[in-house]
């Protein structure tokens, strides 16, 4: 706008660069001042009005809303058998899903068709998986897949692993069948994209505990409920990432096909889909990961597999056995991840190498190895030794004992340090923030949040924040929400610190990446239930324990995204900066991080969502507040409505924080700086 009043510029490009920079300087000067002002008013208000209008509600108390939600739940349950919606809609869905999953189970996991063993024994499964990994990926991942699957058998967890695999495959299959078309639609239509984004937020942040019990009411106890619980959480990444892939196809090829007079369908199938194939495979990848992270929770409604082993072991605090099963889940995740990644790389390379010698060798090998795999499959169908994994391996019990020893050692020798760490973080960071949020009157906190949203994100963000805050008040769980908010903020800050430090390190060093990445995968897929017991020993039942658990789960995502961002800074830029004589520190702070700003924003967003998805687990280890409300609501009938309200409050917190942060990032005038060393 200032261009019109500015003196005639020498050339349009310079003005465009200068004008925003000037306003940027002014805003950068004033914004922190105003923010500081708002915060100062808040602290003064807190000092004066402490403890007034805090809307507190004790854990055993209910509001009319919570009672009403209880009644709704009861009514649904009472009318299940007479309502046509159930008879003709939910029952049909259940039938289809049940049939699919039971079929996969019969194939690889459960005795079926009058046989004491599944159709395919261990040898057949290992051979077919390795063959598929080689055919779609390469021989390295084929070896990894074969090794990983044999490991399940050696751990003594073959049947459990196959049950988990069957359920995961079922959930992923349905997720992709629905998710990819929806993702394409969201990629093409802005309107649909806007419509579906909050729905996806809801699906990803609504705690599973809230809908687990109602699901068994709708779809009965059995594979269908477990699969549907899993796919509610696993489908959003497929939709989001597919849409993102379609959207980030550069404009040039689309315009080119348009000018050639291609129809919309042709543009989609000939340009958009091929060009976004790699991203879509990444979506498949994330869907698998998300599905595997639901394994333990689904076990609470009788989902078969490794989750049950973990839950049972936890009843007696048997960390070793839980770890053994948790490790199998991690290995399965890593195998599936590496195979799908290799498949996406192959898609690229296959196109480039078409016609080479390797390509000509490929076809006969495909046939040869395919025959071998089929022979193995047939043998595992026919012979007992190939059907049932030979017992007698002591690897499982060895792993359990090792894990127990390590945990015992850590518990007895580290708890002095960890106690100190907990106390410092709690008194310096968590307690002040929490008292500021929970002891101020609700209207003061709301005013501060809306003010900050307006200032940092603009009017839209402020309106959304105001709406979320109003709903939080209506939920009757204001004070619990503020307690959870304090923990969420501390955890997200820690996640981002780790994300930037480790992410930059990994992004700059390929070796660091290779070493750290499996650890991150483990952090993402090892069921939290496995490490809660040692964490409880180290930090006792406390809010800090919950924060640590959230960081373990959320930091890997943030680290991976930052590392990816740093690595994708173009090599020429980095070389130019090097030539200009910048040292490592300057390179990171002036070139790589600013250029990877998009990734930092995405990392913060995903970090936040992952932290919020651990709120409930936090409730199991002493976090109290919303997490505990949800857990108690799942366990006690009369608290169901309150648990549901708490689940919604978690979603609201997520949407509010995410929209403010996103708007703030879009609003930030600082342009990505070039080389300015």
């Amino acid at each position: 706008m200032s261009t019109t009043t500015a003196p005639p510029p020498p050339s349009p490009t310079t003005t465009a660069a200068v004008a925003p920079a000037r306003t940027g300087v002014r805003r950068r000067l004033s914004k922190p001042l105003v923010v500081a002002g708002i915060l100062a008013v808040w602290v003064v208000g807190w000092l004066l009005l402490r403890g007034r209008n805090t809307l507190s509600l004790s854990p055993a108390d209910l509001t009319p809303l919570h009672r009403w939600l209880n009644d709704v739940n009861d009514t649904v349950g009472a009318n299940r058998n007479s309502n046509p919606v159930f008879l003709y809609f939910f029952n049909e869905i259940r039938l289809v899903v049940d049939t699919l999953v039971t079929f996969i189970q019969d194939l690889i996991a459960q005795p079926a068709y009058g046989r004491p063993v599944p159709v395919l024994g261990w040898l057949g499964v290992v051979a077919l998986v390795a063959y598929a990994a080689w055919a779609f990926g390469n021989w390295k991942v084929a070896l990894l897949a074969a090794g990983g699957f044999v490991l399940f058998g050696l751990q003594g967890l073959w049947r459990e692993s196959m049950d988990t695999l069957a359920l995961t495959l079922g959930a992923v299959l349905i997720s992709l069948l629905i998710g990819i078309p929806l993702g394409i639609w969201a990629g093409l239509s802005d309107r649909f994209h806007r419509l579906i984004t909050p729905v996806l937020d809801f699906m990803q942040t609504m705690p599973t505990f809230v809908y687990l019990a109602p699901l068994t009411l709708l779809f009965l106890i059995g594979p269908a409920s477990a699969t549907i619980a899993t796919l509610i959480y696993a489908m959003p990444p497929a939709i989001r990432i597919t849409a993102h892939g379609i959207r980030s196809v550069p404009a040039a090829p689309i315009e080119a096909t348009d000018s050639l007079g291609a129809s919309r369908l042709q543009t989609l199938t000939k340009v958009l889909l091929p060009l976004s194939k790699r991203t879509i495979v990444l979506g498949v990848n994330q869907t698998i990961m998300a599905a595997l992270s639901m394994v333990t929770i689904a076990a609470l409604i009788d989902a078969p597999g490794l989750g049950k082993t973990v839950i049972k072991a936890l009843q007696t605090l048997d960390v070793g056995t839980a770890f053994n099963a948790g490790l199998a889940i991690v290995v399965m995740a890593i195998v599936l991840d590496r195979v799908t990644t290799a498949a996406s790389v192959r898609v690229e390379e296959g196109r480039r190498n078409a016609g080479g010698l390797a390509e000509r060798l490929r076809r006969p090998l495909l046939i040869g190895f395919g025959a071998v795999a089929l022979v193995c499959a047939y043998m595992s169908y026919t012979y007992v030794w190939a059907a049932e994994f030979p017992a007698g391996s002591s690897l499982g019990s060895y792993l359990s004992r090792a894990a127990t020893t390590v945990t015992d050692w850590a518990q007895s020798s580290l708890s002095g340090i960890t106690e100190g760490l907990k106390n410092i973080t709690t008194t310096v960071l968590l307690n002040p923030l929490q008292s500021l949020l929970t002891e101020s009157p609700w209207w003061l906190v709301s005013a501060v949040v809306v003010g900050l949203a307006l200032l940092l994100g603009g009017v839209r963000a402020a309106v959304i924040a105001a709406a979320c805050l109003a709903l939080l008040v209506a939920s009757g769980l204001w004070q619990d929400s503020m307690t959870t908010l304090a923990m969420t903020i501390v955890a997200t800050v820690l996640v981002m610190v780790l994300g930037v430090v480790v992410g930059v390190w990994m992004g700059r060093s390929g070796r660091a990446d290779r070493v750290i990445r499996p650890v991150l995968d483990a952090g993402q897929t090892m069921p939290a239930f496995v490490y809660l017991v040692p964490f409880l020993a180290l930090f006792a039942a406390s809010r800090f324990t919950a924060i640590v658990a959230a960081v373990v789960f959320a930091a890997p995502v943030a680290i991976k995204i930052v590392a990816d961002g740093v690595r994708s800074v173009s090599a020429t830029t980095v070389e130019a900066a090097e030539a200009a004589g910048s040292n490592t520190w300057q390179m990171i702070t002036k070139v790589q991080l600013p250029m990877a700003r998009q990734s930092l924003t995405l990392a913060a967003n995903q970090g936040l969502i992952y932290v919020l998805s651990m709120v409930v687990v936090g409730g199991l280890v002493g976090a109290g507040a919303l997490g505990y409300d949800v857990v108690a609501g799942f366990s006690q009938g009369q608290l169901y409505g309150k648990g549901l309200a708490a689940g919604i409050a978690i979603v609201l917190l997520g949407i509010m924080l995410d929209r403010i942060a996103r708007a703030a990032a879009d609003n930030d005038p600082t342009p990505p700086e070039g080389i300015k060393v």
Partner: protein
Amino acid sequence: MTISISTAGRPYRLAGTVFAAATVLALVACGGAKVGGSDSNSGSGTGKCGTFNLAVNPWVGYEANAAVIAYVAQTELKCTVTKKDLKEEVAWQGFGTGEVDAIVENWGHDDLKKKYIEEQKTAVDVGVTGNDGIIGWYVPPWMAAQYPDITDWKNLNKYAAMFKTSESGGKGQVLDGDPSFVTNDEALVKNLNLDYKVVYAGSETALIQAFRQAEEKKTPVLGYFYEPQWFFSEIKLVKVNLPPYTAGCDADAAKVACDYPKYALDKIVSKKFADANGPAYQLVKNFTWTNADQNEVAKYIAVDKMTPDAAAKKWVDANKDKVKAWLPKS
């Protein structure tokens, strides 16, 4: 030209070799037993009992009850037992949808009884298991030994400073909250004027870990717990005596100032299951045993790491006459 022919031929020869190797492998491996060849066990479980859907709630005491009942149903009555691992709420729901036949250790749950027994009429109470459930406040044994008067609630304020933690805001901490159990503890703290704050640990795991660490390191902890529980076979927690329970003293949740009542743990079955009156129903109805019995089986499972089935077998073999009393008379 010749080169390309030979390279085109070699791969197919390679494929042939691979295939031949596979065939040889298959022939060599053909020695093993065939699936379904000599399986004698596959015909079992076809008595008049049919399928028996037994809910298994996630705690070891329950697992002990379920293990023994399932074992007896399988071996004596030839039932096909399907155990379903479910949380209590979900298990009760299962009565209505016809997927659960029996719950064999129920702690109170008056709200669920009202909903499913009285209103929806899908469940029936079939009497007590013989186990008494005790809920209350406990301290680790070393504290009871060192501070003998701590087991009287009147002295709790004297020791409040000892129980301070990062979570209790300057007061003593009462570690609460297995989310599955009803608690009056906030009301108790308030109405008994205790200088304590209730902190919600949030899971049985967290409570057990807190007590275990406290006993090991001789640190103070005061917390909500219950018996029968397998953990007592590891550490004998000592109960703090709150003002004794009298009938009706917990009628108004906000004004509670007395200890928790004793729960007579009971068995609930689905209406359909009861009406059919099959042998499995008779077994569930007749089943009773003592806290000592349950603790024994729970210890086999939790401490000795036996499978539920093996634990049940061991107990059943040693208690033949008790089992006999549960079997259907006809």
